[in-house]
């Protein structure tokens, strides 16, 4: 619709919008996070919801303890292999539409504890992640920036068509395989449907520009 016509109508007290805009506007301004802090990043998440860096302004004030009532899971902190099945189970229990923010270096890829035998190298091995926040720990402003990025992402989601989001597609999975404890490691160690890391041209790595080893 013509923007000028819209502003003219608004001056007369008539608001014109599309259903998609309205739907996304409502959703993005009331993202309820799941009360889910794992480690040090959780303290920065709490600080982000306190009086100084107020997350309530963005509608994300109400931290729900139950996954059934939450839309957003902020995985804040190191995910260990002992905790990973619980994280995936919580994600499965959340109702669609649901989003995941992976906060901190540990949740992205294992972080400083990457050499650990008990550390899961990134929560995106099992569940799909929408926004990643680097940092150790990221400042509360970075968390707010991630929330705004997620809001922009939600704003662009279409209601119909092939690129509509997952929760509007009947055949897209919303629950993922929960790993279980094996004898030496989690089984499976990653979920190949979810985790598709970028392929590296291994044959070229380790050679210089001229192609010599």
């Amino acid at each position, binding site marked *: 619709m013509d923007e000028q016509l819209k502003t003219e109508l608004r001056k007369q007290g008539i608001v014109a919008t599309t259903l998609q805009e309205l739907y996304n506007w409502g959703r993005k301004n009331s993202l309820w996070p799941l009360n889910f802090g794992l480690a040090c990043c959780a303290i920065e998440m709490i600080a982000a919801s306190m009086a100084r860096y107020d997350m309530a302004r963005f509608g994300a004030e109400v931290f729900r303890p139950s996954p059934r009532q939450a839309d957003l899971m902020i995985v804040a902190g190191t995910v260990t292999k*002992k905790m990973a099945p619980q994280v995936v189970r919580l994600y499965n229990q959340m109702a669609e539409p649901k989003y995941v923010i992976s906060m901190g270096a540990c949740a992205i890829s294992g972080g400083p504890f990457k050499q650990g035998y008990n550390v899961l*190298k990134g929560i995106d091995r099992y569940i799909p992640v929408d926004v990643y926040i680097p940092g150790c720990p990221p400042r509360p402003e970075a968390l707010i920036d991630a929330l705004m990025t997620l809001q922009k992402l939600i704003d662009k989601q279409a209601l119909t068509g092939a690129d509509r989001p997952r929760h509007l597609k009947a055949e897209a999975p919303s629950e993922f395989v929960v790993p279980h*404890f094996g004898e030496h490691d989690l089984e499976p160690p*990653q979920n190949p449907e979810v985790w598709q890391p970028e*392929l*590296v041209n*291994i044959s070229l*790595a*380790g050679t210089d520009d001229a192609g010599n080893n």
Partner: protein
Amino acid sequence: MTLETIKSEIEATVPGCVLEIIPNPSPSAQHSLRIDPAHAVAIVTFLRDAEHLRFDYCSNVTGIDWPVKEISEKVKVKQIVDGIEQEIEEVRKSHTGGYLEVVYHLFSMEKKHGPVILRMRTEDRAERVHLPSLTPVWQSAEFQEREIFDLYGVIFDGHPDLRRILMWDGFKDHPMRKDYVEPDDYEYEPTAHDEVLERARQHRTVMGAL
């Protein structure tokens, strides 16, 4: 009250115990006393209850893995070579280690002195890894001994509830041992080099052409 006086008092009170002072070469001068597992409970009960000692607070229980290490030292020996007595250098190889060790740091809250450091060694790192549990004497050893069982594999006899504490129950290895091999949950890196590059190449061949 030095470690030597404590040692002689223990030897006087608990007959048959085998004690050894292990000196500590660092500037902290915290020498430790090695006790034998058979008399351990009697020794520590004496340490806890004796009027002038009263070590009622067991602060820290540590597990240490000493794998077998070969040390070779050059020794000059006199030997008869071609009819002439000569001094030649011989390389003597010996072994240290081959056991798991548990170290206890004891303090006294009543008398405000300490630390007294006790050590107990198992016989080997494979089967004979039993040590007496000191949890009946100090409850603070409960969780720490469970942790040593979990991460090192030392079995404490007499512990009220010996099961894994930090890893999950079905886990089979003892991760803090020096010969533990981590599971290969390979991670793709855009700038693989050195050993990560090697592992990436191996994973590639396993997974087939990509």
